[in-house]
């Protein structure tokens, strides 16, 4: 398991300068996205970024700079007016189902149990929906395995409103993972959590990434979270958002939570903090 992970990172690091275009799972080129017609809000402008296959990318930036917009552009929920978004070699012109998405506030459906909520993507995604009825048992096993992974074993039969906020966010994560997406988009998934639960879930995500080789794009306000989890950190400017700087996180994997108390970790966080503060002022 760990060998696969370190291999993935090794190829990522060695092919750093000017990678082959096919190596990128996500390429965004010179994208402008404006909400609400010609004189609406310009959310992002001249946005260019690339995420390699198997990479763990984090996006940080001032509030309202267009991070959620970026997520929606990649998943095809919004189509940009200018520029191109290419995911897995495909020009994105409509929502694509190789992505799993988790939003900041867990959007669980209150009339379904947690397990049924987690199975929801399988009822939608073309690849699975026709197999679901016949292979129900296998899928339920998979969902229960995911629940166990995030520490929710035995909570599948509970309704979302019987879970705490943190538990709902964990279930939300399971739902984003159930259809084995190639690309996992996480928009501040640990926003409303206490520090300890958050660290616990960081480790869950870290291990998932290591074990399954999934590509992850994480939007976050928490710079320590970005530094702990990611291989690459993108710093965005204030609105209209574009990428100001791209950091390569040098820490070796597997990473331990202890790394956060090392000085090189703090130096990186400090540097990121300075850049975002700068971006806010120059807005």
């Amino acid at each position: 398991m760990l060998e696969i992970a370190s291999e993935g990172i090794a190829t990522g690091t060695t092919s750093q300068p000017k990678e082959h275009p096919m190596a990128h799972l996500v390429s965004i080129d010179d994208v402008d996205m404006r909400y609400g017609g010609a004189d609406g809000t310009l959310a992002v402008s001249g946005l260019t970024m690339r995420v390699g296959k198997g990479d763990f990318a984090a996006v940080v930036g001032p509030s309202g700079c267009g991070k959620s917009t970026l997520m929606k552009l990649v998943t095809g929920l919004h189509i940009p007016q200018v520029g191109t978004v290419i995911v897995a070699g495909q020009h994105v012109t409509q929502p694509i189902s190789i992505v799993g998405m988790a939003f900041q506030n867990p959007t669980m459906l209150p009339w379904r149990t947690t397990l049924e909520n987690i199975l929801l993507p399988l009822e939608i995604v073309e690849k699975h929906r026709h197999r679901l009825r016949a292979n129900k048992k296998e899928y339920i096993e998979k969902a229960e395995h995911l629940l166990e992974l995030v520490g929710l074993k035995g909570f599948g039969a509970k309704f979302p409103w019987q879970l705490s906020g943190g538990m709902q966010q964990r279930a939300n994560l399971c739902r984003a993972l159930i259809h084995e997406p190639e690309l996992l988009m996480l928009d501040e998934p640990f926003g409303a959590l206490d520090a300890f639960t958050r660290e616990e879930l960081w480790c869950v995500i870290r291990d998932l990434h290591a074990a399954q080789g999934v590509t992850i794009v994480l939007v976050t306000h928490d710079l320590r979270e970005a530094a702990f989890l990611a291989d690459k950190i993108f710093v965005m400017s204030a609105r209209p958002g574009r990428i100001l700087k791209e950091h390569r996180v040098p820490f070796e994997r597997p990473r331990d939570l202890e790394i956060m108390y090392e000085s090189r970790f703090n130096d990186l966080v400090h540097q990121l903090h300075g850049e975002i503060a700068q971006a806010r002022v120059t807005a």
Partner: protein
Amino acid sequence: MTIATENSTATPAIAKQPARINWVKAAPWLFTLGMFLFWEMLVRGLGTPVTILPAPSRIFQAVVQYWSPLLKNSAQTLFTTTLGFGLAVVGGLAIGLFIGWSKTIYAGLYPIMIGFNAIPKVAVVPILVIWFGIGTIPAVITAFLISFFPIVVNVATGLATIEPETEDVLRALGAKKLDIMLKVGIPRSMPYFFGSLKIAITLAFVGSVLSETVASNYGLGNMMASAQSQFNVPLVFAGLLALAVEGIAMYSLMAFIERRMTGWAHRSTMAN
């Protein structure tokens, strides 16, 4: 059974509990009883003639005296009302889903619906009589016309207020409009739908009785109209009493169905 086992295991302090009166449970009965008592005393105290306001005792007397026609006409009214209401449920659900389907349809049909709903239904009954003659059919249709509007509005509202984030989660998976409607829109609008049934059933009674009063030879509306022309005021009030009982019964049934079908909506809002 359960009470017996509870008592046997309970400590003496808890065992006293069943003796205490649950005032909240008893309140509806006590208040109804109080209302009738107050009414009785008022009529007796003021000496109001029976042709203006009969005392409850006189009304109950009329209920006993005319039980057979009361029962027959009540059954007829209940029949026309539930039939009209049933049509309104089917039609209201269908039109509500249709309207909630797209913003354009919503925008286009909403003013028409409002205008339609603003027409006093009593003005429609003569037209129905021209088309269908007097009797059961115009009563059913009037009950339908008056009660389907709240159902339509509630279902459409439930569909139109899907949280964009929930929709995004599904759309990001490649969900079509129909998927979103089936997985989110319809389950989500069910609490609105079942909530509207309580309003709709009481309105359905208004419609059917209205039509029976002006254009029928059957039903409580017709019975009350003819009792009134014979100055049989206690029978008129007995008819009203029968309507009130039917209304409360149907309302409770709808409230019960609502609780059974959409318990999650109550509990999930309570949890927040």
